């Protein structure tokens, strides 16, 4: 039994018709409450890693989340342990009403609606978005949609957060608020980003993907910075 919240063992993903695998032989672990940056240039395979974790795409190798190995029967249980922020937050807003959308993560698990709505309201307030509670998602800016999607991902108290480019489109105060929040949340987080400054502030170490392979990992972000220049 591992204490790791997320473990990848020799995981590969190949899309149908693709010449090379999107990720190949990737192995890493993330411990409890650890924040790890997933770095890589465009097309490196960051989003594929995220999708593989929750079984949105078929993969080879072994993926374990919170001690549960990913397979068809455990998929729902694993998805309940994970808070996922999509690269385009608008895609994951499934309800026209902000509060309803954030609360859905709880109501879908059987939490009574009034309690779910109250907890959703508290989560929005924690993200500095209390005023969005009564609004329609159609009238929100990109940054506001991102906060709502993030609130929806966090409201179920996930063990693991998968954040795909969470800082993109956020203004500087928004980025600072997100950094602070990520430090406070009692959950492990894998953060895919190009923003090295943001990664350095929020994450204790990094994993560097290059053309689908785990090229480097460590705590010295300046090595990545030097490589990218």
């Amino acid at each position, binding site marked *: 039994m591992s204490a790791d919240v997320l473990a990848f063992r020799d995981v590969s993903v190949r899309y149908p018709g693709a010449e090379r695998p999107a990720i190949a032989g990737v192995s890493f672990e993330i411990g409890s409450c650890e924040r790890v940056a997933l770095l890589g240039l465009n097309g490196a395979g960051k989003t594929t890693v995220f999708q593989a974790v929750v079984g949105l795409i078929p993969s080879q190798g072994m993926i374990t989340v919170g001690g549960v190995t990913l397979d068809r029967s455990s998929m729902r249980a694993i998805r309940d342990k994970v808070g996922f922020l*999509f690269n385009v937050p608008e*895609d994951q807003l499934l309800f*026209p*009403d902000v509060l309803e959308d954030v609360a*859905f993560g709880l109501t*879908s698990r*059987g939490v009574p609606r009034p309690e779910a709505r109250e907890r959703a309201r508290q989560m929005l307030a924690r993200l500095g978005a209390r005023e969005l509670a009564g609004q329609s998602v159609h009238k929100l800016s990109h940054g506001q949609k991102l906060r709502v999607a993030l609130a929806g991902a966090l409201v179920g108290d996930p063990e693991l957060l998968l954040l795909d480019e969470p800082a993109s489109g956020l203004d500087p105060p928004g980025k600072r608020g997100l950094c602070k929040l990520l430090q406070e949340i009692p959950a492990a987080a894998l953060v895919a980003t190009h923003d090295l400054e943001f990664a350095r502030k929020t994450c204790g170490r990094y994993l560097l993907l290059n053309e689908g392979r785990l090229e480097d990992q460590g705590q010295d972000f300046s090595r990545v910075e030097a490589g990218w220049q």
Partner: protein
Amino acid sequence: MNGRLYRFYTDTWSSAGGPVAALAPVTRLATGAAVFAACLTSDPRTLFGSGLLLFTVGAWLTLCRVPQRVLWPVLVFGVIVLAPFFALSAWIAQDEASALSLQTLAVPWGIFSKGVAVMLVTTSTFASMSLAEFASGLACLPLPRFIVLLLAQMAHQAGMLLGESSRIRAALTVRGAGLRALTSMPRVWLVRVMTRAERISQAMQLRGYDEGVTNSGERIMRHRDWISLATAAGWLALVVLVRVKVLP
């Protein structure tokens, strides 16, 4: 155009300020549906039938109190789409002289007036509620769960798609596509819609959005709701009776 469509979409919901907006969402939907059915049932080929249709639509518009900025575009759209039906009168006429007679024009007039009427009634009904109220009202209706989820997502995603379309069009225009923007639009749009649909499907799987989604409709019915439902049902019954018994 697309930017205007998106603004129209977001502006329409909740824009009406009449007494209908004070009813429970499910009552608004059900009474709107009854008025819609009354419009379809009426027979505007006679003067009396036209009067009945006009009264039905007029009363519903008055009770909804939809702003003119919402009503006018719908009216203009309805006229543009349905007016060509009057050209059918040339085929319906027995001879050239009767092409413009009242009897010949009655058929296209029936299509035109009913079409415009249901467009106005539908818009007014939607203008009397927010998108969230629409979903919650649907959830209270005795419909199969997957139909409710499908309709709610269609209404919600239509807005998202209109927003996306306006961004695509803006990008094509800014990049100097000009008139070519019009021809490029369907191709670019289709690819975007397909990839977007896939991402939304993934989000639904991930967030557990399926037929097991719990019913979020709150059916709190007050006296006024029951009175409105009874009135709308009574009116529909009257229109049906007139259609069957009175009109030829």
